[in-house]
């Protein structure tokens, strides 16, 4: 068998094997993204679910291999891509199917949260030199290419296939020459920022005992893998920019990038299997977890995230959680909270994280072309300054924002143009899920200033004052966007503690009181001698929630 066939088959096998391992790498209390009893995985039901999932994975693998072999003669690159993507997408659906079946065995996770009060030790291993050296290497490569520009050939390879043979060329220019090291620098910086963000905005699940130590070791391993990734990228792009552009298609040096990619794989695979998610497969953590399961009333700890915030058991979306990074439930490592607390909600602020924006936009019923490929989440706010306000929960089809912006004479005044009410979708059928929608409707329209605005909007023809209310606020806020963490800028932002926590609702217990029972926990009032009047103590944090006094 030729190497051109063996390499793609190896890639497909590796992906299938990783998907095969996925259920065993998770924490013992998490099974296909569902919190279960730690012993469930080895029960009859658990083994059946795992077996069915793996049968799907290997069936998909067989299909991918057959597709590749059938197409490899005509279009080898395309055949591999179809096989890989088919396997990955099929794997996602297989995980989803297993997740749904596992939901029947879900148990209520432990709702206790614990946090250390001491400052976090510096978690990034090595000093700043370790993290910045790859950037310096690539910067040096860019400088070298700049200085030797005249010596480079007129036609430069810009892309190589799996076997190290150039398959796309560009005419020499400074941009084309510098592009490779610059792209490498961007990737290196992304990896470094990811590690930094992980250390600052990730969540520690266990704070003491064997589980905490295992988790700490896992985090350290993650950081070293990210450091290793930086050096890998630096070496790879250096090789591509300096060596691969000068060698011929028959040189053995063309295999170096492939070797660089393949050689670390066994080590990473070994570490992954050895540690498991969050270090859960380390001996001490496993003992601690199974010891917990023996307790009579001990609820499974899981990963301290509510099950219902995991879409398909794979995507975490919890606006009431301040953690930006949480442990993955499908696979190893960390994933983003697609709208962490404090990131602006685009429905109200006109901004927000790309992930959260896209997620909400799709739930509102917006089209992909409008919401995702328009790069609109970032640039929309300035455009909205001069476009007629549209309700935030309608399909957004601005006729021509650019034209609008270039013809200020025809620009309607902010807040004056009533929306076409036929486009307004009922809040019952559009927008966020029920618990959130309910809270938002309470937030946006039941307080003085916004209540007046809502009445005014209704008189202008808006069928659901609430909708236009949030839209108008959004327009208004573009003048000077208040800080996200300032909840009381213009109408109180209802988030966090105000939102009924998903855990509380799912447990069947009454929702946490959004207001302390009258007299139960009275707020200390300001007295002349109290610290409230002292700017040193009272003005350094944004004034948070204020309950209206009854």
């Amino acid at each position, binding site marked *: 068998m030729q190497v051109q066939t063996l390499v793609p088959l190896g890639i497909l096998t590796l992906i299938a094997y990783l998907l095969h391992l996925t259920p065993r790498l998770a924490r013992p209390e998490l099974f296909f993204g569902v919190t279960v009893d730690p012993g469930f995985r080895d029960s009859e039901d658990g083994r059946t679910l795992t077996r069915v999932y793996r049968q799907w994975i290997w069936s998909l693998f067989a299909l991918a291999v057959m597709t590749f072999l059938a197409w490899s003669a005509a279009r080898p690159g395309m055949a591999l891509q179809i096989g890989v993507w088919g396997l990955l997408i099929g794997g996602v659906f297989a995980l989803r199917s297993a997740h749904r079946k596992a939901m029947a065995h879900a148990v209520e996770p432990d709702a206790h949260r614990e*946090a250390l009060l*001491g*400052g976090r030790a510096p978690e990034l291993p090595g000093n700043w030199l370790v993290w910045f050296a790859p950037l310096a290497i690539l910067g040096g490569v860019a400088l070298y290419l700049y200085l030797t520009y005249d010596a480079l050939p007129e036609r430069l390879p810009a892309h190589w296939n799996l076997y190290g043979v150039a398959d796309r060329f560009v005419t020499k220019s400074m941009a084309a020459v510098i592009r490779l090291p610059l792209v490498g620098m961007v990737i290196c910086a992304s990896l470094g920022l990811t590690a930094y963000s992980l250390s600052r905005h990730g969540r520690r699940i266990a704070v003491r005992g064997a589980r905490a130590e295992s988790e700490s070791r896992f985090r350290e391993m993650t950081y070293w893998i990210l450091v290793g990734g930086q050096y890998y990228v630096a070496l790879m792009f250096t090789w591509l920019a300096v060596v691969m552009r000068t060698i011929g298609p028959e040189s053995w040096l063309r295999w170096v990038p492939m070797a660089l990619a393949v050689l670390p794989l066994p080590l990473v695979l070994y570490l992954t299997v050895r540690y498991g998610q969050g270090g859960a497969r380390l001996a001490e953590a496993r003992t601690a977890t199974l010891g917990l399961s023996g307790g009579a009333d001990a609820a499974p700890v899981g990963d301290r995230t509510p099950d219902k915030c995991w879409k398909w058991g794979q995507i975490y979306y919890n606006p009431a959680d301040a953690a930006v990074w949480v442990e993955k439930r499908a696979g190893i490592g960390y994933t983003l909270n697609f709208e962490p607390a404090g990131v602006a909600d685009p429905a109200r602020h006109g901004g927000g994280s790309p992930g959260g924006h896209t997620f909400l936009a799709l739930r509102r019923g917006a089209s992909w072309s409008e919401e995702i490929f328009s790069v609109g989440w970032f640039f929309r706010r300035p455009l909205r300054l001069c476009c007629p306000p549209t309700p935030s929960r309608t399909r957004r089809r601005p006729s021509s924002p650019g034209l609008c912006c270039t013809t200020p004479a025809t620009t309607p005044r902010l807040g004056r143009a009533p929306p076409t009410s036929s486009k307004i979708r009922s809040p019952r059928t559009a927008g966020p899920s029920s618990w959130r929608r309910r809270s938002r409707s309470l937030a946006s329209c039941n307080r003085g200033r916004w209540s007046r605005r809502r009445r005014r909007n209704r008189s202008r023809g808006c069928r659901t004052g609430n909708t236009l209310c949030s839209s108008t606020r959004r327009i208004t806020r573009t003048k000077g966007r208040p800080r996200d963490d300032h909840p009381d800028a213009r109408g109180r932002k209802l988030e*966090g503690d105000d939102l009924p926590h998903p855990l509380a609702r799912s447990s069947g217990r009454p929702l946490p009181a959004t207001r302390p029972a009258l007299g139960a926990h009275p707020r200390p009032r300001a007295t002349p001698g*109290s610290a409230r009047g002292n700017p040193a103590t009272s003005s350094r944090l944004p004034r948070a929630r204020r309950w209206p006094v009854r």
Partner: protein
Amino acid sequence: MSVEPTSIAIDLSSDVPAYRQIVDALRTHLVSGQLAPDDTLPPVRQLAADLGVHFNTVAEAYRILAEEGWLEIRRRTGARVVDRRAPAKPATHQKQAFVRRLNEIAAEALSQGISAEEIETGLRLVADGLRRGGG
């Protein structure tokens, strides 16, 4: 012998709001001396991420403790415990609130069959323990 790190725990399924639980837990550490003057508390966002709550919740808790004179809040670096040797004289409404909470606790204890003497002894023990710094 390693010293156990100071930590706080909250219960998200409890009826008591999370910010109130954070305030109560921190105040216990402050009164008992486990958090001494000049100690720093973690930044709001970090504590919120670890506890799995919105950062406004933690900010509110810090603000309440700052109002009580326990903390000095500094942006981005968290909060610093200040020396609060002479507690401010409680206001009337604070005393009333304390009596109300005590009423609730006593009623709950009595309904569970705990005698008045046991309540009295328990309260005294807790207060003495906190004053001695034992938590």
